[in-house]
């Protein structure tokens, strides 16, 4: 029997190009619309029926939005503070745990790992009412602390999981040499192991930061004060209130997604490696 081509045979390069273009368009159209709409004037965006493209792109929207009726400055600050706080908290707490779990067997290690996995699959949404009962008394900026703790706790597991798999991949002999040379365990972790597992740490940082940046349910139920709400919570509120200033909603949306898209694209290779254990969004 004649065997044509190989298992990689692609009979139709034109079809591939059309397919790729269609997929690219499908996965970008809401964001293209978001960006184009953010450049419209108020008259353009509220015209009925609407125009597809802005006549002269109003890049100034990105400057005027801060003093507009939407005033997203405080929300952006909330999002940044909470995301940085949660990421820092997770790094401080998860790194030693991941290192130790990767290096040692101890009674309860599997229980610990199971607990970590269960936490990872649970989400703030399902515990939202319990979290409300626990944290509703945390007023003012304390609510940011509450959200840092909540996002930290729910993202901690992924960080422990991913970092321990990186730590486990470093030959133990490297550690042992450092110990023999007189470094303590903690110093060995910081000065010998950490520099070797930085791809794992970057992955963990990006995931925790992006997940916290995008978190909605806990922030929605906890933050009553408009001025303290992160972007994900104030956005739906803007949607209800400032229906005439759609162009500003989109500048806010663009500001809200660009940083995380950049971060996420940095770890794209690791996404292909497969993060099933922790890719909970």
């Amino acid at each position: 029997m004649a065997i044509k081509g190989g298992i990689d045979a692609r009979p139709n390069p034109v079809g591939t190009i059309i397919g790729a273009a269609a997929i690219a368009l499908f996965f970008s159209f809401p964001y293209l619309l978001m960006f184009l709409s953010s450049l419209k004037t108020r008259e353009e965006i509220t015209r009925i029926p609407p125009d597809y493209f802005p006549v002269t792109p109003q890049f100034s929207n990105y400057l005027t939005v801060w003093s507009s009726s939407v005033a997203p400055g405080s929300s952006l600050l909330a999002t940044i503070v909470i995301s940085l706080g949660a990421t820092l908290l997770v790094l401080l707490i998860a790194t030693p745990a991941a290192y130790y779990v990767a290096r040692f067997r101890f009674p309860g290690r599997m229980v610990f790992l199971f607990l970590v996995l269960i936490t990872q699959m649970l989400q703030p949404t399902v515990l939202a009412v319990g979290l409300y009962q626990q944290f509703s008394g945390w007023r003012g900026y304390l609510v940011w602390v509450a959200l840092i703790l909540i996002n930290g706790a729910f993202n901690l597991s992924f960080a422990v999981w991913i970092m321990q798999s990186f730590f486990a991949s470093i030959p133990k002999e490297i550690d042992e040499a450092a110990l023999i040379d007189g470094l303590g365990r903690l110093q060995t972790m910081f000065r010998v192991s950490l520099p070797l597992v930085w791809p794992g740490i970057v992955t963990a940082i990006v995931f925790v930061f992006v997940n916290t940046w995008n978190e909605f349910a806990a922030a929605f139920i906890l933050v009553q004060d408009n001025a303290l709400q992160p972007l994900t919570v104030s956005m739906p509120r803007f949607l209800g209130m400032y229906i005439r200033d759609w162009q500003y909603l989109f500048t806010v949306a663009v500001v809200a997604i660009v940083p995380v898209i950049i971060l996420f694209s940095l770890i794209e290779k690791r996404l292909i490696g497969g993060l099933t254990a922790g890719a909970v969004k």
Partner: protein
Amino acid sequence: MTRPSAVTALRSDSARPRKRPRRSGVLTALPWVTPTLLLIAGVVIYPTILMFWTAFRKYNSYGIEQGSAGLNNFIGPAGAFTFPTVPWASVWTNTVVWVVVVVLLTLLLSLGLAQFLNKDFPGRKALRLIIILPWASSVVMTTTVFNYGLQTDVGLFNRLLVDTGILQTAYGFTKDPTSAFWVAVFVAIYVSLPFTTYTILAGLQSVPRDVLEAAHVDGAGAAQRYWQIVLPLLRPAIAAATLINIINVFNSLPILKILNETPGFNTGHTTTTLIFAYKSTLGPGVASALSIFNFFFCLVIIAVYLGIVKPTKEVQ
């Protein structure tokens, strides 16, 4: 396949095979793992207990606790599962349809997408980056665009649908609970595709080429190779992606909340969105009672995940 590529690379560099971790006592382990345990205990386990307690307590309209409620928060005259104006038949249907349709269609589309992305063609890397967009972006922001685009007057998607002749006149998708629900299904699939596709792509890359080539030489066609070799090898990736998606989709709040503009109980709620509607109308007791159902559902899925996917296998 659950291990990032960099790990594999690092491992192949090391000359000796990896040994099992050394033994240590609980006491020496404590300083390293206690902070993690404390955070989990304080912010995951404690609110869970609090939620169970709340479900059996009575609250006045100011949220002040007023003694035991027995099972009233569950099945009383104003209970979570018996409140008169809540159409439970449709809430159950919505919840099942929401999870099943979104997760299944996401999986089917992702299988095709991953197959396509696994080929080598110019621009493949760029395409993979573009596909990440809905994954990285906040679901709230993505859903907001759809809400705007589907407005009757200023919405560009509505204009496009009219211009292309698909619709006669602009339609208020978000004003009608039924159409809003189906738009939400579309958006939920849309934001679930990247993660699922990437997971299956990782599975595809672990399919050994020589096996496929051998089957090819033996005369197996592309379809046969896919059904009999590729798909069975993809089972772990599919199981992991599907179970994680079930949890995520089941717990999804913002998509339905932002797209459905009609207030009230009779508007395409799932058990998850209903929790938040209860919280603001009937108080924490009733909302907790419903949360307990959601909590146990999640626990079941997690148990299935731990049993089938066995993520702990590689750390033995």
